C-alpha cells in the first residue's frame, strides 16, 4: 500500500477545530505533529504509547489528583504530543506541572470517549480535518465587517505565519512581519481587487519552511479571506455622510497625535484605525488642499459629496476630509519625488475644480503622521496663494516659498489702518492705480522700467503716479516706512482685486 502524501496534522490545527476548538488548550508546542490518538483507560495503556501520540485519559487513568500528574510525567517520558483530560480532574496545579514538563495539556468538558473518537477520525484523515478547518474559518471570516477583523482572523488562525494586507507597498492591516525577507521563509501573495478599483491590494503571508503550515494550505486560506476583505472594503464606503463625519473626527484625532507626543524626535505610531478608513500614512505623505476661491465657512455636506465623488474617482484610498473652508486629501508613497499619480489625479480633477471654483494647494512630501500634518499646513498656504490664479489653479508649496506669508495678511484690517493713517490717499479717486503702481515699484526693488513693464504703462506714467502718491502720504522711499507701506499696498491691492470693487484704470 502506498503511503499517502498528506502531511500529519499538527496539534495547533487540531486545537482549531471542534471538538478541541471549544476546549481549554495549554499547548507547549502547536507545531507538534499528531500521528495517532489513544484513549488510555489504564496506566498500562499509557505506558505502551509511542511518541507523537495524543492521549485522551479516561477512567482509571483519569481519577484526578495524582493520576493526572503521573500521566503527564509518563507522557513526557514517552514523548507524547499531548494529554487530553476532563475538566473535573484538571486543576491549576496540573496546568502548572504540564508547563513545567513542556507537555501540552488540553482540558475538555465533553465525554472523553466521544472526543477520542472524533480526534481519531481527524488524525487519520488530515485532509478532511483541514477541510473542516477551512469551513470553520470561512464562517469566522464571514462574521467580520472590518478589514482589521479579517486580518485578525487570518493571523489568529495562521499562528507563526504573519499575514498583511498591502496597498502600494504600504501595510494597510495585519502584521508587517509578513513583508520582512527572512531565510527559510516563503512569501505568498494573493491579489485582492476592490470593486471598481484601479489600485489592487495584496494579501501577503510569510510561511516558514519547513513549518507546520504547508504553503498550499495557507494560500487556500488567504483566498478564502478575499471576499470578506472586498465586502469589508465596500461596507466601509457605503455611507458617505457617516464616512465624512468619521473621517473628519479621525483626522482631528490624527492631528492631535503629534501635539500629544512630546519632543520632535518621538516617532508617532500610525494608529491602526487609519487603515480601517483605507488611509495610508507612510514614508512620503503629500497633502492636497482643495480650497474654494471665495471661502464661506464650512462647506455643505452635498458639496463635500460632489467633491469627494470626483476627487476619489479611481483613487478611493485617498482620503477627503472636510476641514474649515476646504478639503484635505493626501497621497502616500515610498518615493517622495514620485508625483506622477498626483499629477494624473490633478489633471483628472481640473474640470471639477473649475466647476466648483476651487483652487488647489499642494504640500511637500514628509514622513509619518507629523510629516503629514506639516504637509497639510503647507498645502493650505499654497492654496491661499493659488487663489490668485483663479478657478482650477494649482500651487505647489515647493514653488511658493515665503510668498505664502503674504497670502495670510489680514487685508481687511490693513485697509482699515490705511483709512485712518492715509486719509488723503484713500479719499483719492485714482487710489487703486496709485497703490498698484507703488506696489509694482516696491516689488521690482525700485526699478521703474520693470514696474512699468509689469503694469503695462509708460515709465513716465509710473513716475507721475509715484509723485502723486508721495503727495498723498505714500512716502515709500523712507527706509523706516518702506516695509510697512509695501505690506499695506499689497493688502489693499489684494483686497480690491478680491472684492472686484476697484480696478486700476489704465491711464
Amino acid at each position: 500500500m502506498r503511503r499517502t502524501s498528506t502531511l500529519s496534522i499538527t496539534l495547533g490545527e487540531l486545537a482549531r477545530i471542534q471538538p478541541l476548538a471549544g476546549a481549554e488548550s495549554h499547548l507547549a508546542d502547536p507545531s507538534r505533529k499528531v500521528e495517532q490518538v489513544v484513549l488510555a483507560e489504564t496506566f498500562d495503556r499509557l505506558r505502551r504509547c509511542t511518541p507523537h501520540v495524543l492521549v485522551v485519559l479516561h477512567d482509571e487513568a483519569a481519577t484526578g489528583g495524582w493520576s493526572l500528574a503521573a500521566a503527564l510525567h509518563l507522557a513526557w517520558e514517552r514523548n507524547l504530543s499531548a494529554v487530553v483530560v476532563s475538566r473535573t480532574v484538571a486543576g491549576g496545579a496540573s496546568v502548572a506541572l504540564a508547563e513545567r514538563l513542556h507537555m501540552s495539556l488540553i482540558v475538555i468538558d465533553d465525554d472523553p470517549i466521544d472526543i477520542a473518537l472524533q480526534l481519531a477520525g481527524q488524525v487519520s484523515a488530515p485532509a478532511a480535518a483541514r477541510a473542516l478547518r477551512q469551513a470553520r474559518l470561512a464562517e469566522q471570516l464571514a462574521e467580520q465587517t472590518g478589514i482589521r477583523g479579517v486580518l485578525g482572523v487570518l493571523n489568529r488562525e495562521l499562528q507563526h505565519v504573519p499575514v498583511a494586507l498591502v496597498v502600494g507597498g504600504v501595510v494597510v492591516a495585519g502584521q508587517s512581519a509578513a513583508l520582512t525577507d527572512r531565510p527559510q521563509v516563503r512569501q505568498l501573495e494573493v491579489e485582492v481587487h476592490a470593486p471598481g478599483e484601479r489600485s489592487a491590494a495584496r494579501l501577503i503571508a510569510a510561511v516558514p519552511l519547513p513549518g507546520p503550515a504547508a504553503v498550499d494550505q495557507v494560500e487556500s486560506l488567504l483566498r478564502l479571506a478575499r471576499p470578506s476583505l472586498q465586502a469589508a472594503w465596500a461596507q466601509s464606503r457605503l455611507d458617505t455622510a457617516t464616512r465624512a463625519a468619521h473621517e473628519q473626527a479621525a483626522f482631528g484625532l490624527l492631528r492631535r497625535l503629534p501635539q500629544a507626543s512630546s519632543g520632535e524626535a518621538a516617532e508617532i505610531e500610525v494608529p491602526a484605525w487609519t487603515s480601517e478608513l483605507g488611509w495610508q500614512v507612510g514614508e512620503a505623505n503629500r497633502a492636497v488642499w482643495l480650497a474654494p476661491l471665495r471661502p464661506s465657512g464650512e462647506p455643505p455636506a452635498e458639496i463635500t459629496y460632489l467633491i469627494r465623488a470626483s476627487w476619489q474617482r479611481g483613487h478611493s484610498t485617498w482620503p477627503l476630509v472636510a476641514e474649515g473652508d476646504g478639503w484635505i486629501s493626501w497621497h502616500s508613497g515610498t518615493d517622495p519625488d514620485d508625483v506622477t499619480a498626483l499629477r494624473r489625479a490633478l489633471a483628472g480633477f481640473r474640470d471639477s475644480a473649475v466647476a466648483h471654483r476651487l483652487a488647489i494647494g499642494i504640500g511637500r512630501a514628509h514622513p509619518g503622521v507629523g510629516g503629514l500634518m506639516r504637509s497639510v499646513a503647507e498645502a493650505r498656504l499654497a492654496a491661499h496663494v493659488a487663489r490668485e490664479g483663479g478657478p482650477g489653479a494649482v500651487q505647489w508649496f515647493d514653488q511658493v516659498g515665503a510668498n505664502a506669508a503674504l497670502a495670510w495678511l489680514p487685508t481687511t484690517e490693513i485697509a482699515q489702518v490705511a483709512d485712518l493713517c492715509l486719509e488723503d490717499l484713500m479719499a483719492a479717486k485714482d487710489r487703486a492705480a496709485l497703490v498698484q503702481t507703488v506696489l509694482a515699484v516696491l516689488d521690482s526693488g525700485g526699478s521703474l522700467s520693470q514696474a512699468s513693464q509689469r503694469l503695462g504703462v509708460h515709465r513716465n506714467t509710473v513716475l507721475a503716479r509715484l509723485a502723486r502718491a508721495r503727495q498723498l502720504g505714500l512716502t515709500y522711499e523712507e527706509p523706516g516706512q518702506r516695509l510697512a507701506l509695501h505690506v499695506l499696498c499689497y493688502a489693499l491691492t489684494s483686497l480690491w482685486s478680491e472684492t472686484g470693487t476697484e480696478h486700476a484704470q489704465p491711464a
Partner: protein
Amino acid sequence: MSGPAGYIGASASITAEDVPALYEGAKFYSPAVGDANRSSITSWLAGLLDRNGPVPLLRVEAVAPETPCVSVCVLGSGSAMADLPPAGDEFEMAVRQIERLQRVEFGAVYPLAAATISALVAVVTAAQLRVPLLDADGMGRTFALIHHTAMHLSGVSPTPLAAVGPTGESVLVEVPAGPRADRMLRANVDTVGGWAALAAYPTTAGVLRRAALPGTVSRIANVGRLLLDRTDPDVLVTRLGTITGCRRLARGRIAELEHLSRPSDVTIPAHPSSLVVEETGGLGRQLRIELRSEIVAVFADGALIAGAPDLIGLLDVSRGVLATLDSLEPGDLVDVLVTPADAVWYSPRGMEMVGMASHGIPLAHPRRR
C-alpha cells in the same frame, strides 16, 4: 532488631515522665490527627501512671508463651475523640467484655497500632488493668482498617472483638473472616459518636512472638524524645534517620489542597484529597502528596518517589514540629519525610493489603523499580 545506643526497649517501664515523648513519637508514626486534645489525653495517662504506678514494658519473648494478650486501639476519628473525650472506662470495658466471653484474664496488653492516640490508650489500658504492656504492635504505624495487621497476615483472627463508644454503648463482633469485622464496625462507630475503644486480636504471647512487630512501643518513645528536643529541622531529620531510617524527600511550601476530585471507595475512611507542594530550592519540583487518612504517595513532577506502605510525614519547618494532616494550610513550609515501614509490609501479601494499589494507585512502588 537491635536499636542504637540509648534504646529503652528490652525491659523497662513507662512512667508519667515518658508520656510527652510517647505522645510525640506516636504522632510521628501517624501524623493524621492534630493536637486538639493532647493536654487532656496526656494528663489522663500521666494521672493514671502516678496513681497506679509505672506500667512495665516487656519484650514479647520476656512473657510466658501461654499468657493471654489482647490489643487495644482507638477506632475512628481522632477529631471525634477530641470533641467527645473518653469518660475513661471505655478501653477497660472493651477488654472485660472479651474476658467474659472467652473466660480468660488477660496477662498483657499490646497496641493494635503503636502510633497516634492508639499507642497511648494501650498504656492507659495496661495501667487500668494493672498488667504489663508488650513492646510490640500489629502495624508499626497506622493503616486504615483493623485487619491491616501483621497478626492477620499470620492467621490470627481479630475477633472476638469488642468496641465501646464514649456513649457507653458497645458491640461485640465475631466473624469467620477478619476483613468483614471492619465493615461491621464502621457503622457502629459512627453511631456511638465517631470513635470507639476497640479490644481485638485476643491471643497468646507465644503467638505474638511470631505474629506481632517487635520493639515498636519503645521505638516511639525514643523518636518522641528526639522530637521534644526541638532541634533545628535539619539536625532533627538526621537524628531521626539513625533511629527510623527516615530521610527528607524535599522541602517546600504548600500551594494547594484538592478535594473529592475523583470517586472514592466508601469502605476506606476519609476521602481522597491531595496536596500540592512547590519545592523551595533544589530542583523547584512540583510535589503532589496524596492523602487518605494517611499520606499514601508522593509524586515529584508526576514521578512517583514514595508510596504506601512507606510512612510519609510532614515536618512544619518554621515551627520545628510534625505537621498533622488536619491542620495543613496553604503557605506552610514543610519537609516531606519518608520512613520505610516494617519489612512485612513490602511482602507480596503486605503490598496487596496496604500498598498503593489498595488506594487505587496502580503504579509500581519506587522500591520495586
